[in-house]
């Protein structure tokens, strides 16, 4: 209890209100201490082997990094050869920290990496394989790998999902001539054409001396892919160098915007500085036959003219990235909440994180995505990404082994301990857990997997029987704190409980107090791990003791949710929708309870938000149970 913030700085100095508040907070602090127990970590027998799904550049990097750090790795690749998309590349963009020097295209050296992976004693490689099912929990995953007709179960600690991507289906780009002319190819197909030195056009084998690259072939297009694939501009600049291996050939890059962020700008500069590399901005509308065997790329709003046709022998469509997770769960989790990562539609099918600050966080504990399955990215970015994912996977394996939570409560050794004798198998906890940590057995009884748990206590809030407890956080503890708050007899002095999320709302209140902003003396503030842990019984508890109102302050929800536990505040809101019933039973007005979304930087508004709620409660009048 921060007495200073809650009772001193935020109250009128030396007032009766401040005194009363201080007493209440001390009382609550004592109850909290009395009701809490010293937590002991949930230690179980674990395995720290890391499973890497996908043997492309991201997967191989993740495997090597983990193995070099002393961990056992199981690598699963669906093809019969490691290497993924890099196998298809003729050359790659060289590495550079600043200016790019010639040559601007270099060998991928993928064979070297494959050899390194296959020769590493810590890495077990399954080729032509897939993950059939993943059971258990971090530290204790049982992963069934099907390979060449055999199935094998391996013990796994944590998982790196690097199953990669596929190019967008060019057959959907008929307006760009794909399928209609043999001389319209995708950038992936072009890698193959380039392999033989001088580029020939597929239709008649003549030298392709005029090659047009159409950028954003499908990407940044509401009819196809809404996102940018991040790598295609650099790829086309690279492929222009393939074209220029023939000194008589020209490469024409037709773009909407050239996107070479960061130091890649140096590559753009080096790659365009070639007599035969031509670029212009424009909107490509169609690819048509010119009548003499070549093609016309039709453009509008081009810098070369309002409406122009560019004549070309060969057209390369810079098609984009589609993540493997778009239509395949890959992980095949045997979780009650489903086989894949949830909410991927928020990320266009990518196994991405909703958290800007925590890029590897998925809603399945111990599963970290890397490479183009997470976000569209270049080969070198994928390698960095995979290294980061490997660290997170190692961290998760180590944390579950010690019985400590992973992100965001990475210090927490408590865990949910349901009193199962009283469980009615209502399944609310299994449905509401944002991390799918609770399965059900054959009879439908919840089955807690602490290794998957992030300690948000949503289950504690969900349970109508109040059976879920943590050693230092449970329904009775918070309920008792509320019940012991002073309730003034004076009808003009309402008493209101504010339940504040400890991640955003509470720090905002803290900051308001630090600025010595005055907070209405009617409120008593209680910190929650997450609003998701709000149990409706508290409302009954509080109102039966004469409390006049209850305000929940939690994180923003919706598409861009800010809740560290994904769904906590939203679930609390959903539950409050049902509180009517409880309040009706008590013959109380539903408006006595409210939930307001606040962000951590809204400290300037917090006093007014609270004030407004207090006014609302004052208008309703005192709680009729007061004094009972």
């Amino acid at each position, binding site marked *: 209890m921060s007495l200073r913030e809650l009772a001193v700085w935020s109250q009128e100095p030396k007032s009766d209100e401040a005194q009363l508040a201080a007493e209440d907070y001390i009382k609550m602090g004592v109850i909290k201490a009395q009701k809490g127990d010293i937590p002991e970590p949930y230690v179980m027998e674990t395995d720290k082997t890391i499973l890497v799904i996908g043997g492309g550049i991201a997967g191989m990097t993740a495997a090597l990094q983990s193995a070099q750090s002393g961990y056992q790795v199981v690598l699963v690749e669906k093809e019969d050869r490691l290497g993924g998309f890099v196998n298809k590349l003729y050359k790659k963009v060289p590495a550079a920290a600043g200016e790019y020097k010639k040559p601007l295209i270099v060998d991928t050296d993928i064979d070297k990496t494959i050899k390194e992976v296959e020769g590493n004693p810590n890495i077990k490689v399954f080729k032509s394989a897939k993950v059939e099912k993943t059971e258990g929990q971090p530290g204790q995953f049982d992963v069934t790998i099907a390979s060449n007709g055999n199935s094998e179960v391996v013990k796994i600690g944590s998982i790196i999902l690097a199953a990669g991507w596929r190019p967008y289906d060019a057959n959907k780009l008929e307006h760009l001539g794909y399928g209609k002319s043999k001389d319209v190819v995708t950038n992936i197909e072009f890698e193959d054409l380039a392999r033989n030195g001088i580029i020939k056009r597929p239709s008649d084998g003549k030298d392709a001396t005029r090659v047009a690259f159409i950028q954003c072939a499908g990407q940044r297009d509401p009819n196809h892919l809404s996102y940018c694939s991040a790598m295609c501009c650099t790829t086309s600049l690279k492929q222009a160098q393939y074209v220029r291996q023939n000194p008589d050939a020209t490469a024409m890059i037709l773009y909407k915007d050239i996107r070479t962020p*960061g130091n*890649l700008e140096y590559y753009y500069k080096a790659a365009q500085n070639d007599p035969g590399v031509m670029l212009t901005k424009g909107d490509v509308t169609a690819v048509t036959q010119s009548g003499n065997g070549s093609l016309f790329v039709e453009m509008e709003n081009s810098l070369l003219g309002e409406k122009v046709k560019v004549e070309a022998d060969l057209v390369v469509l810079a098609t984009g990235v589609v993540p493997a997770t778009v239509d395949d769960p890959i992980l095949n989790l045997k979780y009650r909440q489903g086989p894949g990562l949830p909410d991927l539609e928020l990320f266009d099918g990518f196994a991405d994180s909703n958290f800007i600050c*925590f*890029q590897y966080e998925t809603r399945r504990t111990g599963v970290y995505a890397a490479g183009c399955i997470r976000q*569209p990215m270049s080969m070198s970015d994928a390698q960095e990404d995979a290294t980061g994912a490997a*660290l997170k996977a190692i961290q998760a394996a180590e944390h579950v082994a010690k019985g400590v939570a992973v992100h965001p409560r990475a210090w927490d050794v408590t865990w949910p301990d349901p009193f199962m004798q009283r469980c009615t198998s209502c399944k609310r906890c299994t449905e509401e857990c944002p991390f799918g940590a609770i399965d059900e057995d054959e009879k439908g009884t919840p089955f807690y997997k602490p290794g998957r748990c992030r300690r948000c206590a949503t289950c504690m809030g969900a349970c109508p029987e109040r059976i879920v407890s943590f050693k230092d956080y449970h329904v009775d503890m918070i309920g008792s704190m509320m019940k012991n708050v002073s309730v003034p007899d004076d009808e003009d002095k309402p008493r209101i409980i504010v339940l504040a999320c400890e*991640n955003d709302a509470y720090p905002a209140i803290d900051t308001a107090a*630090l600025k010595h902003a005055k907070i209405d003396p009617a409120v008593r503030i209680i910190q929650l791990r997450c609003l998701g842990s709000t149990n409706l019984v508290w409302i009954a508890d509080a109102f039966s003791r004469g409390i006049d109102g209850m305000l929940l302050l939690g994180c923003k929800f919706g598409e861009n949710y*800010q809740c560290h536990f994904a769904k906590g505040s939203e679930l609390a809101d959903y539950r409050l929708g049902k509180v009517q019933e409880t309040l009706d039973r008590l013959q109380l007005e539903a408006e006595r309870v409210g939930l307001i979304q606040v962000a951590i930087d809204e400290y*300037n508004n917090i006093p007014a938000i609270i004030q407004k709620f207090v006014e609302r409660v004052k208008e309703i009048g005192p709680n009729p149970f007061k004094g009972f």
Partner: protein
Amino acid sequence: MSEQSNKQPNRILVIGGGFSGLTTAVDAAETGAEVIVIEKNPYLGGRVAQLNKYFPKLCPPICGLELNFKRLKNSPLISVYTMAEVENVSGGPGDYTVAVKLAPRFVNDNCVACNACSEACPAERPNEYNLGMDTTKAAYLPFNQAFPQKYVIDSAHCKADCGKACQNACKYEAIDLNMKQESVTFKVSSIVVATGWNPYDAKKIDTLSYGSVKNVITNMMMERLASPSGPTGGKIVRPSDGKPVENIVFVQCAGSRDENHLPFCSYICCLASLKQTTYIREQNPESKAHIFYIDIRTPGRYEKFYWKVKDDPNVSFTKGKVAKIVQAEGSDDVIVEAEDMQTGKKVKVRADMVVLATGMQPAGAAQKINGVNYTEEGFALSNQGVIAAGCGRNPMDVARSGQDATSAVLKAIKTGLGR
């Protein structure tokens, strides 16, 4: 790390306590390494602590910082040194000696952030946290949610009796005016260089008239103007006369992608300007924003954020770089000039205020650490035991900085394993 390899504790020194450094520290400590964080500011969080909101979610950056601070406080493995600078790095992978200079804060751990010293302090200092747009007392807390939550006395601006006045006001004996600069050395197995970036000095771009034409500001200043902890409490008004801004122009690539200034692309500026249009549009439904650009760079799924802003009829875009900015005659308004390439005409747009999307210059451009390698532009280079992370090695956004830092942790830990 796994037992068989864990002969000695892995000790990692992190230079820079901004977003990358903080992520490095937390991720490394949570993987079992001992971490020392060296931060030159009196607070952690770096540039992120100055941001109003993140793109594309428009959420407050302090939220993620707060969580990292909490983890840091909960970890016994992390020691933080603020107002500290690395003077020299010597040794090799697995065994580095790092010399660090600690500047005096003049405030000790007794500080409870009660603000009494600040109230009593007679002197003021320019507030660099708000990019010089306002002042603080010479005894100050860098910003509301600063970590550590400890005041600082700026001795350069607290001369004569100023210090005594502050000291007398403190009831907790937290002010120690006899603190001296100290030097300490650390023995570590690896080093992560996460020194971050500085906004490019807009005064150097003479065509854009920063400093000579009124109401031309930089994007970082815009962040502070829009922030609730900024000089105006979050109201976007123009500096010259406090007029609410109704008409704003964003000038992209102000210094970036320019051989005369920063030859690389700064990655964040397009998204930052798109984001900043939402600040102004949210404050005033009638307001208009105009973005002049060379290429709009919203890679990956950021594209959808671009679409969202583009759908706003009051935000317009012109392909063409601004290369001339003048004061409107007899007014504090600003006139920018560019070629609208789509129509092929020179255009002049008059605005209440102009925001220069100035780019990021790696910290290594201004200050190089002895013993660390850099590119010509000042980007830190990695080797086996010294790992560069974040914007100090390549311009990137916050998301990538965090990811890059996590990646650096594994490399740093691997170095320590070999001992």
